[in-house]
């Protein structure tokens, strides 16, 4: 190397490298900031469009507090009347949080659901994004069907060998329905607290059904 490893050279060199890198990063950050926000926004909008019926105008964002926790939701309207709500709710799955966007129409029917993020086991719990499981929640009337996997005496077919994920998914939908009730009636019935109790149950040992290979 042509440059001597003197203390001054080393300090100067590292300093220069850091400054140039930081400047470069700041520039790229400034350039990509808008596209990143746009991508986030586009993802939200497309998720909303998938979970609620046809609507006009822009979805209106708001938050509501249910059972001491804040939930964000979007209201969509048609002909000046709200036709549906897209509610973001989450619960604890097998590999981490399962975050859903649940669309509920104004007549309290789950229109559709979309997984916003999940970290379930690939090939097992991660199948919750596939239609075979997720489509069970299309046009589902929570008043008519029992919201639990068949193993727990409900009406939902669990994902093969992934009961914990299936339960988490159902719980998130249930939470969304409870949030919907609060949005519509404006009263916190405490149903969410009851639903959260299921979390611990799902975590109980001996439920290693995901391992069934």
């Amino acid at each position, binding site marked *: 190397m042509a440059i001597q490893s003197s203390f001054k050279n080393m300090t100067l060199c590292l300093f220069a490298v850091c400054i140039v890198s*930081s400047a470069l990063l700041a520039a790229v*950050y400034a350039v990509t900031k808008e596209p990143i926000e746009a991508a986030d926004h586009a993802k939200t909008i497309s998720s909303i469009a998938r979970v609620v019926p046809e609507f006009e105008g822009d979805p209106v964002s708001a938050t509501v507090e249910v059972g001491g926790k804040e939930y964000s939701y979007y209201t969509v309207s048609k002909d000046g009347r709200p036709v549906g709500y897209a509610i973001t709710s989450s619960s604890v*799955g097998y590999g*981490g949080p399962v975050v859903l966007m649940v669309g509920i129409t104004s007549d309290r029917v789950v229109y559709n659901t979309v997984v916003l993020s999940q970290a379930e086991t690939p090939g097992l719990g991660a199948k919750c994004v596939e239609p075979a499981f997720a489509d069970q929640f299309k046009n589902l009337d929570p008043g008519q069907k029992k919201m639990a996997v068949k193993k727990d005496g409900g009406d939902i077919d669990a994902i093969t060998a992934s009961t914990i994920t299936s339960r988490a998914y159902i719980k998130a939908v249930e939470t969304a329905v409870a949030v919907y009730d609060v949005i519509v009636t404006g009263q916190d019935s405490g149903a969410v607290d009851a639903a959260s109790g299921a*979390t611990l149950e799902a975590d109980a040992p001996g439920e*290693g059904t995901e391992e069934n290979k």
Partner: protein
Amino acid sequence: MEYILIIISAIFVNNILLSQFMGICPFLGVSNKLSTAVGMSGAVCFVITLATLVTYLFQYYVLVPLHIEFMQTIAFILIIAALVQMVEIVLKKVSPSLYQALGIFLPLITTNCAVLGVALMVVTKEFTYGGEPHLLNLGESVVFAFATSLGFGLAMILFAGLREQIALNKVPKAFQGIPIALVTASILAMAFMGFSGLV
């Protein structure tokens, strides 16, 4: 209770080597002999815990207030590199015997992705211990980091023990070295899968 969950989960259920695949290079590289595996595990334990503590503080007291979170990767890797250097110097002065045991592994640790991995995990990943998903606080982060490194050590030492046995056996030529080690790791990973569902 939550701390116990974190510890069990980090050591057994989400073992950093056998289920997260971080730090595989030393796992395959220095697991020929039990003694080196122990040395490496000790050094990793030390560095992961310290690095997580420092990067956690740096994230919340420097990067977030200044809104320069995008400098995270650069800052963390520099902190880890500097920390490894410092540990090396301090160890040399304070405890030459410990330095003898761990010294040669220290330079390798900068590029051990388990260290950067854990540091990034505690500030980005939402954990679900005890109900609601949340980011870890300082105490939980340090406990998590320490437990993770114990998990690293456990897998490493078990693996080294197995490899010492395999070295005594006849192995088909094409399988010699890394392939047979990977097959062993696969079986070990299968054994660790038995822990899943525990937490």
